[in-house]
């Protein structure tokens, strides 16, 4: 697109001004000085974009398949392949709208001689999904800035960024898995491991009668083995608004990270044939395709068909809810996001009603407890931004559910607020641990697999 900018036309007015002042004050110098504005007008009028202007651009992405929350360095190199110098070249790289730039600027303004190159470096925050870079917008101006050409310059080199959200391999391949999908219990029955003996009762299976003892003492005795029951694993994702906090703009929220961890665990569990249910707390009905259940929970049971697909829908819903919230935040008051910070009255209320042995009044918490099957292992995923997950974990421990809390650590930076939030979270995790749950503190700087491996190993060795 070619455009002429009439930026020097004020020179004519300046010339007239000088003439009138010159006539008013009888000063010949000013009449001669009209040469100055007029030469600028001529400068603007005569300056033209040189023929044979040509530019080429190449982009390189440091890591085309990063993990979510990881900054990815991008470099765009612009080369003047034309025959004339370009005094004013401005370029804006076509960063995908969804990816926030976290370091540097994707914009550059420079002067280029023939065959000279300039490089533009910046970093974007990776998000789940595949993103395609657009063509770079380039605007070239003449020295007088009165003539400009704007083009969308196709860029050679890397053009996409894929942030995968599935596990290519089961991360805990080397983890000890004694028996997938079963939980040893403390009751005797049929099984493999010896538990106890008791006197024979009519109807006991013949193969469990202790024939040796019968031969010695002439008494019928039945051997009980340690019973092994198949259990369900329930993955509870905390996606309530207080969990949708983010340490810095563009970084995934606590809820998204929780969902991400849950999704990876779900995939791993599917491969090891554990019966896994997925539950997300705190979603609105417009976030979930098909709406929420009557108790306000998004729940997928492993028994139903297409469980994996439904579970994935729930994980995606968490991302949608977080996106909706951040839209609302940016559209409305900036204070809204602060309202979701940990130190909120909502958290206080929950804490007050779920003290040890106290009553529970939080509807979401009650709904989760009501929905849980009698035998289930529960893995709770929450950034522990308020006291709700601690209440849930302690309530589960009281009901003797084996419970694990996986908590992504959101504290970043050295600000006072971050330090306070981090201390509060540590205190919450300690309380959860004291109530009997296994706590996995997932530091985001370490790979997610490490935390998951710890989580899974723990889960299966209960």
């Amino acid at each position: 697109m070619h455009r002429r900018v009439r930026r020097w036309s004020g020179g004519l007015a300046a010339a007239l001004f000088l003439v009138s002042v010159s006539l008013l004050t009888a000063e010949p110098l000013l009449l001669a000085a009209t040469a100055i504005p007029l030469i600028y007008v001529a400068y603007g009028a005569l300056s033209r974009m040189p023929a044979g202007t040509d530019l080429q651009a190449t982009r390189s992405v440091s890591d085309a398949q990063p993990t979510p929350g990881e900054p990815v360095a991008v470099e765009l190199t612009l080369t003047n392949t034309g025959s004339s110098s370009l005094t004013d070249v401005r370029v804006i790289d076509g960063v995908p709208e969804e990816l926030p730039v976290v370091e540097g600027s994707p914009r550059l303004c420079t002067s280029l001689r023939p065959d000279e190159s300039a490089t533009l470096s910046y970093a974007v925050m990776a998000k789940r999904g595949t993103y395609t870079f657009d063509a770079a917008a380039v605007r070239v101006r003449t020295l007088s800035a009165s003539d400009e050409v704007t083009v969308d310059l196709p860029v050679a080199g890397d053009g996409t960024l894929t942030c995968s959200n599935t596990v290519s391999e089961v991360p805990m391949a080397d983890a000890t898995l004694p028996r997938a999908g079963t939980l040893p219990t403390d009751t005797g029955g049929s099984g493999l491991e010896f538990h106890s003996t008791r006197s024979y009762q009519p109807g006991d299976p013949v193969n469990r009668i202790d024939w040796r003892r019968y031969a010695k003492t002439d008494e019928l005795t039945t051997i009980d083995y340690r019973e092994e029951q198949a259990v369900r694993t329930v993955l509870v994702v905390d996606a309530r608004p207080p969990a949708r906090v983010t340490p810095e703009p563009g970084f995934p929220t606590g809820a998204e990270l929780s969902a991400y961890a849950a999704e990876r665990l779900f995939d791993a569990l599917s491969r090891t044939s554990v019966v896994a249910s997925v539950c997300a707390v705190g979603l609105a009905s417009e976030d979930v395709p098909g709406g929420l259940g009557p108790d306000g929970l998004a729940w997928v049971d492993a028994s139903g068909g297409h469980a994996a697909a439904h579970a994935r829908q729930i994980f995606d819903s968490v991302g949608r809810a977080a996106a909706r919230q951040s839209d609302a935040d940016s559209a409305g008051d900036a204070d809204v996001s602060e309202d979701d910070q940990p130190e909120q009255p909502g958290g206080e209320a929950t804490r007050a009603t779920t003290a040890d042995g106290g009553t529970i009044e939080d509807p979401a918490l009650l709904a989760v407890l009501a929905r849980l099957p009698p035998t289930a292992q529960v893995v709770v995923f929450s950034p522990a931004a308020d006291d709700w997950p601690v209440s849930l974990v302690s309530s589960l421990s009281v009901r003797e559910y084996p419970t694990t809390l996986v908590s992504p650590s959101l504290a970043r930076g050295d600000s006072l607020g971050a330090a306070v939030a981090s201390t509060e979270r540590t205190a919450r995790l300690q309380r959860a641990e004291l109530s009997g749950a296994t706590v996995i503190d997932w530091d985001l700087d370490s790979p997610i697999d490490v935390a998951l491996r710890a989580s899974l190993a723990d889960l299966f060795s209960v």
Partner: protein
Amino acid sequence: MDDTISLPTRMPWTSLATVIGVTALLVAGLLGTVSADRAALVGVATGVLLALSLWLSGWDRWQAVGTVLASVLALPVAVGLSLATGGTVVSLGAELFPVTSQAGVRPAVVTLLSQVIVVLGCLTAVFGATAATRGVVDTERVGTYGGVVVRTTAVPFAVALVLFTRGAVDFLQSNAGTPGVQQLTGEALTQVLEPIFDPVPGRTHIAIFSLLLALAAAALARGLDALPLSELVPETSDAPDVDRAVAVVERTFRWTGRLALLVAPVAGLFELGLGQESLAGLLPAGLYDFIVAVTAAPGLRGLLWWLFLSGTVVSVAVWFLRRTVQSSADRVGTVLAPYVGGGVITLAVVAVAGPAVDAIETALRATPAAAAVEQFFVPILDVYGPETVTLALAVVALFSLISVAGQLSVALATSYLRERTAGVTLAAAGLFGASAFAATLSTPTWLVLAGLVGAVVVWDAGSFGTTLGHEVGSGAATRRTELVHTGGTVAVGGVGAAATAGLSGVARGSIAVEPSVAVAGLVVCLVAVLALVAAIR
């Protein structure tokens, strides 16, 4: 490339440094040619203060504080504006006038005018360059600032008006003895005011007294009603029953007022129709004497008048406070701040009135207008007092500031100034005008040419930088392009300056031969060049 993306339109550092550096150098150079040094310095300071005030009035973080500061700064800015223009005129007037011959008048006037315009141009340039650093000249901010200044002016204006009216009334009354118009107005005023405040003794004045009583009683009842007396009493069982007592007093006042209002016309008819003798005959002797003593006492009249005033003031103040506590603190701060600032300004002006008037008188006496000082200034001072005169001068200065804010907002509204480049455009225009008029003073040619080219460079670097900041953002590396662009502009300006130097040599020679023909020829040449340029475009 999307121009609609609203990035912060802060210009990059290099362009900003160019704008500020060139402006500072040129202003220093140009002001060196002006002989009124002090006025010039005041002008520069005023430019900076005006930009600061604009920024303060749009300070979102501490809105109330910003408004108070902008409001209080209004007086220094207004006085600075007046001193920069008036001070230059006064100090130069003393220097240039009286001229020896008739032919010397025109050059003297041109010199005076040029110097004033150079000072004003430098003021504008400093203001524009300072404003450009934060981009403070925009429609919203100028509007807010205008509102603040108008509200600030309201208080000194009202006080000055009251003082002026009082001075005028006193003066006109004292003039009743002098023949002419003064006598008429003075007599009229005396006729109106005397029956109210200073009645003729020895006769009854029931009607007017009743009217005054009715007014005072009504105002007192209203004031009592407005006061939150019952709210202030503790809510305990043994607390005195204030409510009832207040209601009784208030009812008494109301009925007194109504009664007095009823009595007034009847008494008036009796007083006019019957005359004093019949009244004295009708009434018992003691009562008549008592009525005469009460209704004609000037002290009692004064008391009633002050009661009326205090009742009115109390009800207005309470109404105002009630409104105030219902608003948010920030809003109250923002809305009230200018009035508080106006009050502070009024007090300050009244405090320094004596020395200020003396200084003005001394300065004026040094000018050719010394005769006018004796003829107008001194009598006005005698009649109205130094406080009123100083306050009136301050109000006039504040009005000039209001007009500046108005002109700015009109220029912005009509897009003569674009919001984005308003600061640099003002700076460039100021420098250009100042340089042009400096040519008529004893300024070296190189400085005039440097000023003209520098004004263009300031505007070019500023507008280029603003566009750059808008398109690329201040986070990107842009210095190289900025330097190359500014270098190009300076080079072109150098060519223009060289051409001017050459042309002026030719012009000077030709003017020595035949001035009028040469000027006419140059004008024709210029029109031809303009036409050529228009054709090229």
